[in-house]
């Protein structure tokens, strides 16, 4: 097993499949009356969050607690971080406290890579800047596999602000490894340069959502921040929604079996309408549930739970 999970690129097909299979076992725990396994008893997991992210933090917290780990939540607000402590000093502090795993969310791309140089424990990237969010990609893959029965050969459209999306980067890497075909869709201003060369050779780019929809098994909508308008990435929220938002009529262009995903939090009315978000095709709530199982699997495997 790998020591850290920093990027979707850290996972080969076998490792990724092992995580998904383990997550499926973990999911059965959630159905029990006592939702707890003793696997990580006596191990310490630190949630080191430099950005507000309630949903990701509580997902990791629930995952660690269901495995009986001791969980320390270390949020940048109200801690020594706010007093100007460096990432390295924080890392050394966590190291001295005996953290077996550090789950880190950070606004700077690559911060988890830096952290991994300074701690002996495992580092899990819970979202770094505009870089990656590998456990999100794992839970997305898990959800696709659960709904559609496979990943190899699936056609997945990832729609929206790819440039600033850590979810998109991790998904392109992981889905390509697992044999799915990814098409990135958005205005040219929000598609980063050389994306196929940078991430996965088979990745396609389209600027036309309507043309892509009839041929996909999965459409994954990304959150688009209204503030991007100020930097002229697109002219207005209304124009964005009209060209790249997923509404009812567009949803009906999808094949019968296709599912709609969103990593949350949604901007209802911007990239997705309530009709779509609340439709049976939508997996948005399942994604949250699956997130806990997948993060249990990641912590379990990284911390060597399978060797005990």
């Amino acid at each position: 097993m790998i020591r850290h999970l920093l990027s979707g690129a850290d996972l080969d097909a076998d490792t990724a499949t092992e995580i998904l299979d383990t997550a499926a076992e973990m999911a059965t725990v959630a159905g029990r009356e006592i939702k707890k396994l003793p696997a990580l008893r006596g191990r310490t997991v630190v949630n080191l969050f430099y950005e507000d992210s309630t949903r990701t933090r509580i997902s990791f917290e629930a995952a660690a607690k269901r495995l009986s780990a001791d969980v320390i939540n270390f949020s940048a607000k109200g801690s020594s971080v706010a007093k100007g402590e460096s990432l390295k000093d924080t890392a050394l502090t966590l190291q001295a406290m005996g953290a077996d795993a550090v789950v880190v969310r950070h606004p700077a791309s690559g911060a988890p890579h830096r952290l991994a140089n300074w701690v002996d424990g495992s580092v899990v990237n819970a979202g770094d800047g505009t870089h990656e969010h590998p456990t999100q990609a794992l839970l997305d893959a898990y959800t696709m596999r659960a709904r559609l029965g496979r990943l190899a050969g699936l056609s997945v459209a990832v729609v929206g602000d790819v440039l600033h999306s850590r979810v998109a980067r991790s998904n392109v890497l992981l889905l390509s490894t697992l044999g799915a075909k990814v098409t990135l869709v958005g205005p040219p201003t929000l598609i980063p340069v050389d994306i196929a060369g940078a991430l996965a050779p088979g990745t396609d780019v389209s600027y036309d959502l309507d043309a892509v929809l009839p041929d996909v098994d999965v459409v994954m909508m990304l959150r688009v921040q209204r503030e991007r308008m100020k930097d002229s990435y697109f002219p207005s929220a209304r124009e964005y929604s009209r060209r790249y938002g997923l509404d009812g009529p567009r949803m009906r262009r999808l094949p019968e079996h296709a599912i709609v995903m969103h990593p949350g939090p949604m901007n209802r009315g911007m990239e997705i309408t309530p009709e779509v978000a609340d439709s049976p095709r939508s997996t948005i709530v399942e994604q949250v549930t699956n997130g806990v199982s997948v993060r249990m699997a990641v912590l379990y495997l990284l911390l060597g739970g399978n060797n005990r």
Partner: protein
Amino acid sequence: MTAYLITSVSIVGAAPTDLLIRDGVVAEVGPGLSAPDAVVVDGTGLVALPGLVDLHTHLREPGREDAETVESGSRAAALGGYTAVCAMANTSPVADTAGVVEQVWRLGREAGLVDVQPVGAVTVGLAGERLAELGAMADSAARVRIFSDDGHCVADPLLMRRALEYVKAFDGIIAQHAEEPRLTEGAQMHEGEVSTRLGLIGWPAVAEEAIIARDVLLAEHVGSRLHVCHVSTAGSVEVLRQAKARGVRVTAEVTPHHLLLTDERAETYDPVFKVNPPLRTADDIAALRSALADGVIDVIATDHAPHAVEDKECEWAYARPGMLGLETALSIALDVLGPEWDLIAERMSRTPARIAGLTGHGVDPAPGVPANLTVIDPAARRTIEPAELASRSRNTPYARMTLPGRIVATFLRGEPTVLDGKAVK
């Protein structure tokens, strides 16, 4: 004053001969020299070059003496074979008055390891809003001739035009840090495949090329001298090539790191590889090397940029840009150009001395010329250990790399600053 006799040394690649330094000048050159009072330096297998001249050095004093001082940077320069360095103006306070440039100049004299030639800021506080008192700096004891807001681009086209025109009165030159600021807001590394993969905001090549294109047109329009700092892209080379072909009075420099390292170094997120302009691609490196050989790029300049540990041991986005360069530049040049001694002397000594107006520097060792020279062992190879560098900072991108060439001795006006590869003081 002690005399030095360097025996059997190759002067700029020529057949070995003896070289006698006495009373601050090269006294004699020729085979079989004898000088019983002189200290003998065995020059067998070694090459003597005119002392190197760096057009682009950050000495950090005043303001960040924890990162570098005029003295520590001067020592690093001497160990790198330099006899003169041009100290950039982005200190704290900024070198935008006669007082600050004279302070830096005086600190350089007191250290006595290289000639420290201050560069003056173009605009007050490097703010890009109004001209600093360029004439006062030119008239000061520091006799400033190069003006630069380096670290910042003089982005306002009117201000740039005025600066180019104004310094004609004292044969000054504007050294531009070419970076269109709106195109590089928040930029962290070269915009391309690697920045996409790493999720770091890209610094597009066009942000440099657009400013160089504008500035060569401005310089042509007003008939002034323009120098372009740290050229980093293939597109910039083409703009410069065309401007030079038209006779525009433009010169350009390239750094050692832009001749050797690519943007792929960012993949570890280790900010020791963060620099501005950023490391580019292998295609850019090929274009820069060929421009250096054919003269479209005139000079290798280090952009030696020391930074304290805490400014580099952090997240990439929060780290300061810049890398050390003085103690490794000649080795990189040797690695990139091979033992082309005349070309190395031209790009690292004669031309930069001429651009900076430093008389007494950049002159090949010959009877009667000031003994500003350096002696290199081209056969030596050394492994770069950050802790062994003379700079106060440790941010070398070449850590643990093995590079060719070693400086054996450096002389400033006949006084050794480096002997046996060690700083004399």
